[in-house]
């Protein structure tokens, strides 16, 4: 059958949180579902999203929270399959400041790194502070990115703590066995504790209009992702790593594997959005952004579980 | 001056002033009045720094006089003087062109096909004694050689008005005469108006119909205008043996010498004058 072409903009392909999108390509799941998918790597989730809004890509593989955020800007985006059930954000204390900081409460007045001001990591931090009874503005926020800059800043103690993602967290853990972690949403425990439910991380989403007009492609994508998720949970981390392209694994395989092991529980088993999680996203963003708080967003419009459910009923996806 | 011929270049009381630092103004030439008829050969002589080059620049349209007017063939001059060929006092060859290309460009600009332009350029280089130097870039030529390439560059265009600023300055006496005869030949064959600046009074008299003397600057003026009634065609070397030549020379020389000494005294005043 003639394959439809779909371009997926990935918000930073190296991040383990986006692994299912890449793995699906490696496993050939997209082709099986009748799609020719091109993955384009962008620097961050918001760049990926802009690529889709600008029309140069069809679907974003990125964090769901942007859908909510953009609803406040009257941009209708809709997530149709969620592959991360936990957000994977980790609040880590710099090895140089381990002794001073024992809980989130100690963060008042400290310098805390986030990937970028205004990013998900920033909002997450503000939410945590608020939840722990601190003024969200009481800590000074420094953008340090997600990569080596963040690691350097943490190692040198230029910042007191940081919100990080994998593999950076694993790198730090590898160098510092006693690394102090204040909140680890790679785990079910902390995710539930912080958000009171599963909190959606990476998802495939696009404009509501696209989802509507490209029902077939969206369904195919959903099927491919669900198949991949099932494959992930039925294979060992080593198997998964073996499937990933060399340039993404890099030379330090041990590091990648360790990070992967830390991350695997994060991947969703169902591909479904937990409505509580969606509400939590809104809550988080309302905290940091008055604009979102005021916007009267109907969260239920920002996602749909319909395609996942259809996949299940037709039995194409997860076995 | 025979009034039948049109005036090729006319300066009507042209005054030229330069702006100096501190908003002061230096009047180089004041109320210069000069008319060069078509086909007339006028030599300008004057002490160094009196404003000879300035006058040529005005006639070329490169400088606007602060007061007075310039007419070219009875038309007021606005912008460049398109009828004139100008051999500059300073080096003005295109350093990125070989000697032959420097000469040929004068024709190429008019649309002459390149092959033909090169052929003529080679002929011109040969007449100025540089046939063997066609492929040299200007920096590989001696001072006198560069000047002669410049001469060929101007002459090849066959302009109606020739402005020449010390064209034979860096040449030896012999070559000067050869070049002078070449110029006269050309001018006789196809009469042009020539404005010729030189420091060599003998050369001026030997070549020109009229010799114009300028006073020392600042505010230099035209202070003398002699007709040279020597018969044409002249041979530059032989004309010097003429008695009339000597009388004229002595007469002009007297005026000139006085002027130079005056200028020297004027311009060498102690500092603070400016």
């Amino acid at each position: 059958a003639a394959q439809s072409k779909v371009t997926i903009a990935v918000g930073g392909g190296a991040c383990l949180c986006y692994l299912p999108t890449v793995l699906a390509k490696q496993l050939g799941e997209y082709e099986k579902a009748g799609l020719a998918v091109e993955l384009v790597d962008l620097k961050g989730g918001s760049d990926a999203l802009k690529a889709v809004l600008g029309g140069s890509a069809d679907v974003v593989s990125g964090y769901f929270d942007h859908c909510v955020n953009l609803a406040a800007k009257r941009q209708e985006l809709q997530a149709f399959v969620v592959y991360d059930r936990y957000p994977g954000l980790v609040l880590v204390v710099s090895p140089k400041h381990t002794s001073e900081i024992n809980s989130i409460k100690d963060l008042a007045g400290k310098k805390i790194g986030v990937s970028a001001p205004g990013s998900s990591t920033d909002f997450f931090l503000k939410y945590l502070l608020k939840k722990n009874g601190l003024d969200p503005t009481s800590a000074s926020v420094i953008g340090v990115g997600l990569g080596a800059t963040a690691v350097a800043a943490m190692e040198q103690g230029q910042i007191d703590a940081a919100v990080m993602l994998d593999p950076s967290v694993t790198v730090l853990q590898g160098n510092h066995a006693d690394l102090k972690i204040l909140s680890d949403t790679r785990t079910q425990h902390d995710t539930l504790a912080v958000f009171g439910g599963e909190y959606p991380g990476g998802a495939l989403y696009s404009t509501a209009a696209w989802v509507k007009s490209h029902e077939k492609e969206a369904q195919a994508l959903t099927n491919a992702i669900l198949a991949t998720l099932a494959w992930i949970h039925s294979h060992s981390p080593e198997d998964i790593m073996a499937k990933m392209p060399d340039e993404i694994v890099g030379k330090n395989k041990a590091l990648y594997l360790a990070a992967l092991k830390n991350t695997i529980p994060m991947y969703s088993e169902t591909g479904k959005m937990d409505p509580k999680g969606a509400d939590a996203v809104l809550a988080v963003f309302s905290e940091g952004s008055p604009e979102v708080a005021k916007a009267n967003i109907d969260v239920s419009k920002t996602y749909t579980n319909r395609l996942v459910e259809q996949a299940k009923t037709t039995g194409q996806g997860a076995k | 001056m025979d009034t039948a011929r049109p005036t090729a270049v006319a300066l009507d009381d042209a005054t030229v002033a330069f702006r100096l630092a501190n908003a002061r103004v230096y009047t180089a030439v004041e109320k210069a009045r000069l008319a060069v008829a078509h086909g007339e050969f006028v030599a300008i002589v004057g002490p160094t720094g009196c404003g000879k080059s300035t006058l040529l620049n005005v006639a070329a349209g490169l400088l606007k006089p602060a007061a007075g007017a310039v007419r070219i063939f009875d038309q007021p001059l606005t912008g460049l003087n398109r009828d004139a060929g100008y051999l500059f006092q300073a080096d003005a060859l295109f350093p990125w062109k070989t000697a032959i290309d420097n000469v040929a460009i004068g024709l190429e600009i008019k649309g002459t096909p390149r092959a033909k332009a090169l052929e003529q350029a080679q002929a011109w280089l040969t007449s100025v004694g540089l046939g063997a130097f066609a492929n040299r870039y200007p920096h590989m030529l001696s001072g006198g050689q560069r000047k002669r390439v410049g001469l060929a560059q101007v002459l090849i265009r066959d302009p109606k008005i020739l402005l020449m600023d010390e064209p034979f300055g860096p040449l030896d006496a012999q070559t000067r005469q050869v070049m002078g005869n070449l110029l006269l030949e050309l001018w006789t064959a196809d009469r042009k108006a020539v404005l010729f600046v030189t420091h060599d009074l003998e050369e001026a008299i030997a070549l020109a119909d009229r010799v114009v003397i300028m006073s020392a600057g600042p505010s230099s003026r035209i202070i003398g205008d002699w007709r040279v009634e020597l018969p044409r065609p002249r041979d530059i070397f032989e004309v010097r043996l003429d008695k009339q030549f000597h009388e004229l020379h002595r007469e002009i020389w007297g005026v000139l010498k006085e002027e130079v000494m005056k200028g020297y005294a004027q311009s060498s005043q102690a500092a603070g004058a400016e």
Partner: protein
Amino acid sequence: MSRAALLLCQVLVAVVALALWQVFTTVPLFGRILLPPFFFSNPIDVFDQIVKWFSTGVIWKHLAITLWESILAFVIGSSLGVLVGFWFARQPRVAAVFDPYVKMTNALPRVVLAPIFALWFGLGIWSKVALGVTLVFFIVFFNVYQGVKEVSSTVLDNGRMLGMSERQLMRHVYWPSALSWMFSSLHTSVGFAVVGAVVGEYLGAAAGLGYLIQQAEGVFDVAGVFAGMFVLSAFVILIDMAVTLVERRLLVWRPTVRAL
């Protein structure tokens, strides 16, 4: 053209550009909006944002930091460029040996170097200055290097025959002769100094215009992004004016208009 007329023309250009921007972002032409407001905001919103920044005063702190970084990057980068440019031009062997390495270095994407700068210079202003320096340096260097080599050989010979030492040649011949080359590169590099500072902040900082812009980007506030860029550009003009003043002062000897 008189100063007033010139200014008028300049203002006119700005007005037309802003008007077009406003129209294209708000009025649909041929059935669609040419510049989607999501990407381009519109001049009124941008102006609002700028006014808000200045009226609340939040901008000053960020602006001061960015300006300071830019100026440091500019001064350090161009001084280094001038020094190394002169040095290379006067030491043809050194130049020949290092030439490929300089060119290689110039091709390194500075963005990738950000972690190393953060490591060496910390997250404060110095890592941003370093980023700016790596941009400014090369622009100035290449021009000064060429400028020194372009010195008129007669004038140079004259200097040498007058008995100038290498240092005196530098001061009395090479330096003045290479000045217009240097200033040309300075005009280019003023902009790049600012770009370096902003990009540096963008990659990791706690304050500065780059930080503001990134924050605005994070929440999809395009008006904020554009406002940041405008404030930036306006200040570049100011720095450039300072450069032009110095240039005029140092190049008085050049022929300008010929006569009254």
